[in-house]
Every structure is written in structure tokens, then in C-alpha cells.
């Protein structure tokens, strides 16, 4: 088994609508964490939410960079409206490191170093090579990919760093329609930001009470929380360089510490799992996608 100690820990963007202050304080704590190496942040899910965090962005970025984190700004996932096109152009032109989450950002960032986020479809090495040639230096692979895809992608396009979702509810779909607003009797254009009432997502159960999905505004996420602890040696062997932790409404500094300890061999995977159940008891755990199974399943590593 490969050495896991070189794996870096990345904090992905907060997917949910949190108040600006809560969002800022979250990143201040991340800045103080010695276990987080890189941070990608910014509103990627819904352009209507952007004004909640935008005022705090400069001070948050400054604090993160001052504490040595590699910072990147995430572009919007679904770009349809003129003002969203304009915002993506502005982001790309500003000169910061950007994580492209839509083909539009790939056009705008071509020729200079950038990251590719999990919402750009990279299913094979040929696509990864094409993106690397255009300036991609790190690719966060989509959560649907199994290790039998991740291996050949990295082997066939080794000139970049690779990140996988190691913790968090998985982004599964995005729509022009807001199911979150709709569930609460609002249309998207007059949503009253009701998604802010569920800082960890709105539960969707089946009619027979089975926990099923989770809604986050226009995004549909897994109900299960992906957790990859036992898989770290395998991922390192495949050439994965970064583990993405996707923020849930729990103590993410403690989550990052758990991953760091497992990575460093200081904590066994099963013990880490027990600890994680205490830190984040809200969701069942899953790792099925990585093992080529249904995403919601748990496969013993």
C-alpha cells in the first residue's frame, strides 16, 4: 500500500446558504486549523445567494492566505442568466486562482493555471489531458467516478494534481428550478432565501419513510455522507494528491483533524469512523461510488 502521508486536505466550498457571519467565522476557524492545506470557496450553487457572503470574502481570503492555505475561488455551477455570465467573466478576470465548475469558466481561464471542479465532466484521461493542456493544474473528480476510473485517469494524465470527495454529502444534480423554494410554497424568483432555514440540507424521505435525498436550493445532494477513511492508502496508490472535505453543519475542524490522523497513521479507519459518528451524527455514511456500487451503499474497504 502506498504512503498516505503526502495526501493534502482541501476544504471545498460551503454548499449551503449560511449567514454571512456564520460563513466568515467558519473560515476563520479553518484558517486556524493546522490540518487544512487548501481551501476552495465562494458561492457555487446559486447566484441569488452570493450577496450573503460576498462582503466577507476579501477578509476571509486574506486570513486564509495569511495562515498559509492555498486558496481558490469556485465558479458558479449552472450559468444561464446574463448576470451569471458577467459574474463568471469577472471572477475569471480578477486574477485569483479559480476552480472552474462550468464550461464557460474553462473558456475564460484557458492558457493560465486554474483548477477544475467536480462539476466539469472528466470521465477519462483524454479529457483530463485536454484540460491540463489548457491550464488545469488540479482536478477535483466528480463523485460518481469509481476507483476503476480514477486509476486510469491519473495514470493517463499524470501532469496534474487530483482531488476526490472524501467527506460530505455528495452533489448529485442541479436544476433551473428550485425544489427547496418549491417545497416551501415559493417560486425561485421570489424564494425568500428559505434554503437558509436548513443549513445542512432539507431531508427528502420516501413515502415509506426511507431516508432518500437532501435538497440544497437548486442542488440535490445525497442524504448519505460520503466518508473515505479506509480507502486512503488505495487512493494514494492511484496517485490522488488531495482529499476534499465538503462542509456540513458540524465541527469541520474536528473532521479535518480526523482525516489528518488517519492519513498520518495515528488513528485506525474504524476508530475514526466511530469518532466521526459523534461529530456528525445527522447522516448515514456511504462510499459506494468509489467502489463502483450505488453511491448510497456502504462497502467495507
Amino acid at each position, binding site marked *: 500500500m502506498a504512503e498516505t502521508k503526502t495526501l493534502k486536505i482541501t476544504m471545498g466550498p460551503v454548499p449551503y446558504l449560511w449567514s454571512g457571519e456564520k460563513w466568515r467565522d467558519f473560515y476563520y476557524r479553518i484558517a486556524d486549523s493546522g490540518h487544512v492545506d487548501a481551501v476552495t470557496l465562494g458561492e457555487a450553487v446559486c447566484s441569488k445567494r452570493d450577496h450573503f457572503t460576498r462582503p466577507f470574502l476579501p477578509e476571509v481570503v486574506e486570513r486564509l492566505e495569511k495562515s498559509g492555505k492555498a486558496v481558490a475561488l469556485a465558479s458558479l455551477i449552472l450559468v444561464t442568466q446574463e448576470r451569471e455570465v458577467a459574474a463568471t467573466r469577472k471572477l475569471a478576470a480578477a486574477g485569483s486562482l479559480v476552480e472552474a465548475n462550468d464550461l464557460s469558466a474553462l473558456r475564460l481561464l484557458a492558457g493560465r493555471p486554474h483548477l477544475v471542479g467536480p462539476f466539469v*465532466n472528466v470521465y477519462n484521461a*483524454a479529457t483530463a489531458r485536454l484540460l491540463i493542456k489548457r491550464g488545469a493544474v488540479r482536478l477535483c473528480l466528480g463523485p460518481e467516478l469509481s476507483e476503476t476510473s480514477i486509476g486510469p485517469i491519473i495514470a493517463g494524465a499524470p501532469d496534474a494534481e487530483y482531488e476526490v470527495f472524501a467527506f460530505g454529502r455528495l452533489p448529485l444534480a442541479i436544476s433551473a428550478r428550485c425544489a427547496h423554494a418549491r417545497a416551501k410554497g415559493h417560486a425561485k424568483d421570489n424564494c425568500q432565501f428559505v434554503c437558509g432555514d436548513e443549513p445542512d440540507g432539507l431531508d427528502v424521505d420516501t413515502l415509506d419513510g426511507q431516508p432518500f435525498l437532501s435538497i440544497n436550493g437548486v442542488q440535490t445532494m445525497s442524504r448519505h455522507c460520503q466518508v473515505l477513511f479506509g480507502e486512503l492508502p488505495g487512493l494514494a496508490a492511484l496517485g490522488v494528491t488531495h482529499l476534499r472535505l465538503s462542509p456540513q453543519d458540524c465541527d469541520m475542524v474536528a473532521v479535518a483533524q480526523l482525516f489528518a490522523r488517519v492519513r498520518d497513521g495515528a488513528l485506525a479507519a474504524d476508530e475514526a469512523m466511530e469518532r466521526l459518528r459523534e461529530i456528525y451524527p445527522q447522516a448515514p455514511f456511504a462510499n459506494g461510488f468509489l467502489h463502483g456500487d450505488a453511491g448510497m451503499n456502504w462497502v467495507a474497504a
Partner: protein
Amino acid sequence: MELICPAGTPAAYREAVEAGADAVYCGFRDETNARNFPGLNFSRAELREAVAFGHARGVQTYVALNTFMRAGAEDLWFQAADDAVAAGADAVILADLALMEHVATSHPGQRLHVSVQASASNVDAVSFLVESFGAKRLVLPRVLTVPEIANIARQVDCELEVFAFGGLCVMAEGRCSLSSYITGQSPNMQGVCSPASHVRYREDGAEMVSELGGFTINRFGADEPAGYPTLCKGRFHIADEDAYAFEDPVSLDVMDHLDALKAAGVTALKIEGRQRGKAYVAQVVSQLRSALSAAPADRPAHLAQLRRLSEGQRTTSGAYEKKWR
């Protein structure tokens, strides 16, 4: 506007041609296209025959190769593209960036269309594909209003095609892993959504329960027809209510927007439904053809005929109208 019609079988292909299609789209019998259903699609020989049949009648053939190439198995897609070109396809419809690069490099004369699965929903995304791979036409995802489509059409250097009738994806196409989260199989990878292999119906008292991968997608009373458990069109428990959380079991019908779409600069209208029978395809095509060529005053009669084909399902104009959001 051109009428682009589906064919899941050679018989449906011929029906679509006879009924007035400008172009017919189809796929090979494997995971290289997003309607990889049992009993559907074309062998290499069947595609060659279809292309010849169409060309003899002035109808074009588009070949959908619109799944994403599985790592380590890319040759399956490269070979399918090469075979489609060799068979004389008038266009290939692609979603995977590397497959686009392959066609642009190896077959520079081949007309390249971008599938809805590529999820290009704005001027910069469309231009990226035009500039990088020489895309001549792009099928827009069902996330845009008519004014947004018009805005894109004004700024891009390629033709635009939109979905007009048939199935409706609620989620942005090519960016949905709901099916694989529940079943392990997805549109992007295996070319299936909510696959029949994972569907089960069971009676529970007076109710019929439809399941996908062991999860209840809907419950139907005795007087309700039990629909197919497409994941995003199920009834769920959400925010203390039982409701269609994402979308009702509706299909797409943008007939009320035909003039607006034409004015917006749309080149082609696409009918969804490669999984539908040949009789359905023939009727939709001929009614839509009649509606398109009819005077505005005569159009409603044709559209009423067309709407009967939605099989009792309710219809929506989806994202084309802003209020749908």
C-alpha cells in the same frame, strides 16, 4: 425550423422519414449513447442502411454518441465515432470533450453537434465548444427561458437546437448522478436513467407501489394509473408534506412557444423519444410537421392532435417559461 426526430429502431427510423422528419437521430446498440435500453438502437449494418434510406429521401441522419467515455474503455467510443463517420452520418452528437477532440482531429470534415448532455447553457460555454472543436450545432439543456435562448443565439457562432416535445429532464442534463446514487447506473456513464432492471411494482393493500432500487418512488391509489418510477418525478415526503418534490410526472410540450423560438433564432426542434414505438414517432412527427407548416390560425387543431399523444400525461413548457423555476 428543422424537425429532428428520434428513432430507437430501423422501423421507427423509416416511419420518421416518411412522416416528414428533416433529420433522424439514433445510436448504436451499446453504452455509447444515452438511450442504452434493452431491445433498442442500431447495429453498424442497420445504421448504414438507415443513412442510405434517409439520403435517398433527402433526410439526414445524426448519430448520438452522447455518453462520457469510460476510463480505460475509450476505444469503444472512438470506434463508434469512426464507424458513424464511415457510415455516412450527417452529424455526430457528442458530449465528451475528448471525443469531440477525436472527431475534430481525426475527421475534420465531419459535422459535429454538441449533445444536451454536455450541458452548455450560456454564451461562453457554447463558444468554448465552437472554438475548441468546431461544433456546428449545439443542443441546449432544458434550463433556459426563451429570452435566454434568444440572448445566446445572438452571441454565438453556431446553430442552436432545442427540445420541443417528449420527456423532460428536471435536472440540468449531463450533470445528474441521482440514478447512479440509487442504482449504480447513470445517464452519463451507462446511458440509462432509473433503469428498468431496478424497477419493481408491488401491491400494498389497495395501493400500487413503484420502487427503484428498493426505494419507494410513488404510491398510486386504485383509481390512479401507476407510472414508471423515474427518480426525479416521484412523490416524496418533504417539508412535512407528501408531494412531487422535483416535478410532477409530466412531459415537455413547447408548442405554445414555436413562434417565439423561431424568432429567438433556434435552428431546429428536437423530439425526445428514442425509446418510443414507431407508431408514436410517426404520429408526433406528422402532427408537428403539419403544425409547423400550418397558418397560425390552423395550428391549434394540429396541436390538439399532438397533445393526445402525451398519453394522458400532463405537459409542461418547463424552463422555457420563467415561472417554472
